[in-house]
């Protein structure tokens, strides 16, 4: 067991592209850290550099306080679980799990004992004599994990280990991974492109984009206090709504009406180089059916009227999609996010607002409905830099903060 420190680690490929740029990251002993981001953001390259499968172009990587830049993977004492599982097809499950121990030249008795132990933890005992070809996807995944835990390495690296499983099994295995990590207390770095996995599994989440770290923090902090537009749009499902806003006379003109701003934001907007257009970010759960809001709550937000496009009843609450007129919010980050989810292909004209209302709401498709949203929870982003203007010392205070 050991801590892992990345000190300005970069990866440049011979053709000149930079896959990872100056990543600083300190992973404490026993911590479960998730690297998350859209495809091509450098998360897998970062993991491969920690593993030793890719050379580090510049910067320093320390495992357990020791510089390991030039060490071969086998001298780093870390185990890796691959997205493809990478089981050795010519070996049985037992031989697969024993392989790292045999290479470490342990005696037969110890090997058997360790394999049996690991198999018991992962409920693989009955499958030990089978070949990987005769296992289901979930079983193969467990064998891959077994092969990693069997030699008690300093750290686990997991490269999208659940992405080849079907949705139901993935949720199940998520809890298995989580429990296993807590039980063993081994430092773990986990790569995924699925923000739900990132939110549910990690002690801390590292969001990457274009080879650079965007924000590092516990899942809830990233959700509540996103540092920029990219983080805000990436974390959360359904994702945050983004509305185009124009700064005019100390107010924000938007398709949802004029949004008042507090003193602090106003001061910032009055500065010479302040952006004249902003992007307003509102999470779906910060909307409510105006008819269901009590007066005290009503004062903290504002209301607007819009036609209801679609109503999805989830039982516990309702997802109501409003159609709003006006210019679509646009920024490089948003386009990148849309491209990653494939949403760019079918976004029609106008923009859709996703809201999560109480189940009691009587909103019906086709009607025009009055809705309320919480001004204390909204975020304001600079479309140019993507920076969250509402963030003060790392905390988001909403638009009204003084």
């Amino acid at each position: 067991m050991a801590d892992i420190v990345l000190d300005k680690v970069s990866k440049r490929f011979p053709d000149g592209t930079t896959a990872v740029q100056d990543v600083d990251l300190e992973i404490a002993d026993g911590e479960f850290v998730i690297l998350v981001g859209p495809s091509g953001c450098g998360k897998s390259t970062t993991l491969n550099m920690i593993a030793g499968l890719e050379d580090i172009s510049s910067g320093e990587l320390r495992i357990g306080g020791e510089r390991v830049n030039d060490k071969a993977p086998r001298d780093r004492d870390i185990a890796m679980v691959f997205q493809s599982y990478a089981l050795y097809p010519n070996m049985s499950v037992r031989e697969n799990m024993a392989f790292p121990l045999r290479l470490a030249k342990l005696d037969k008795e110890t090997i058997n004992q360790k394999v049996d132990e690991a198999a018991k933890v992962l409920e693989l005992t009955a499958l030990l004599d089978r070949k990987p070809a005769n296992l289901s996807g979930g079983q193969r995944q467990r064998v891959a994990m077994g092969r990693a835990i069997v030699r008690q390495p300093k750290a686990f690296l997991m490269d999208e280990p659940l992405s080849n499983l079907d949705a139901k099994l993935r949720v199940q295995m998520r809890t298995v991974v989580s429990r296993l990590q807590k039980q063993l207390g081994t430092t773990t770095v986990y790569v995924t492109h699925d923000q739900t996995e990132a939110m549910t599994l990690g002690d801390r989440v590292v969001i990457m984009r274009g080879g650079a770290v965007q924000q590092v923090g516990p899942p809830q902090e990233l959700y509540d206090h996103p540092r920029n537009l990219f983080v805000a749009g990436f974390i959360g499902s359904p994702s945050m709504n983004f509305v185009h806003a124009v700064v005019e006379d100390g107010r924000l003109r938007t398709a949802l009406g004029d949004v008042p701003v507090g003193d602090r934001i106003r001061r910032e907007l009055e500065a010479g180089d302040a952006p004249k257009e902003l992007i307003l970010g509102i999470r779906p759960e910060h909307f409510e059916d105006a008819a269901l809001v009590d007066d005290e709550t009503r004062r903290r937000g504002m209301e607007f009227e819009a036609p209801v496009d679609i109503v999805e009843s989830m039982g516990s609450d309702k997802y109501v999609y409003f159609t709003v007129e006006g210019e679509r919010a646009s920024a490089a980050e948003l386009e990148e996010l849309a491209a990653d989810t494939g949403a760019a292909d079918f976004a029609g004209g106008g923009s859709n607002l996703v809201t999560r209302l109480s189940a009691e709401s009587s909103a019906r498709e086709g009607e025009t409905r009055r809705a309320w949203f919480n001004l204390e929870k909204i975020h304001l982003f600079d479309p140019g830099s993507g920076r969250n203007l509402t963030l003060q010392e790392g905390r988001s205070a909403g638009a009204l903060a003084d």
Partner: protein
Amino acid sequence: MAVETTTRAKVRWGLLDVVVVVFALVPVLWIASLSFKTPATLTDGKFWPREWTLDNYRTIFDTDQFVRALVNSIGIALIATTIAVVLGAMAAYAISRLDFPGKKLLVGVSLLIAMFPQVSLVSPLFEIERQLGLFDTWPGLILPYITFALPLAIYTLSAFFKQIPWDLEKAAKMDGATQAQAFRRVIAPLAAPGVFTTAILVFIFCWNDFLFAITLTSTERSRTVPVALQFFTGESQFEDPTGAICAAAVVITVPIILFVLFFQRRIVSGLTSGAVKG
């Protein structure tokens, strides 16, 4: 309806297969039949010998010439195959796994060699080997065989190596294996079917070669069987050695058949299934 169509399709394909097999096998069977006939009945035009005899086989094994050629053939083909497969495996592994400068050139050149008309190289090779003292020796045949078998070996083997998921090698390295251990314990066992397939192809190429064998040899010191057959004569100048030649032809197909049968069992398709994904 669907069932009827499939049955009809099966019958059609079956008939087609039978035609192909008969077309390919009749000459072979004819040779075998001739080899069992006595000189008197040799030209009777009957497919089935009226009088069976093993005299032809006795004749060829009595002559030193044939046995010596058989030894030459087996030795030369086996050595050339071994070297070509080992070199080919290393080259193919590098081609499929590494990005090195000149990779395209290497692949291109090996393809060029494979396409080169061999008959045009015969005279220069003859001159070169005479100068170097390689003429009429085992290495004199083994070297050109390796040269012309290598492109074949590289192409077949790199196709097999490309099928092996690279993740397996990475996994082995993470599990604590050196590069050599990863190759020997993980990659090589999975590439075995490819290696055996290649070995069979190369062996057949060396075994069957007539062109190089007839130009680069002059005595039975290194003459191989296909050439030895050509020089076959009867006990006297006027005797017709057809029966003996047929017997020899049957004998030299036997090692090929044995070789294929022996390695065929190892060519199990789908050996890599279960390595990755589901």
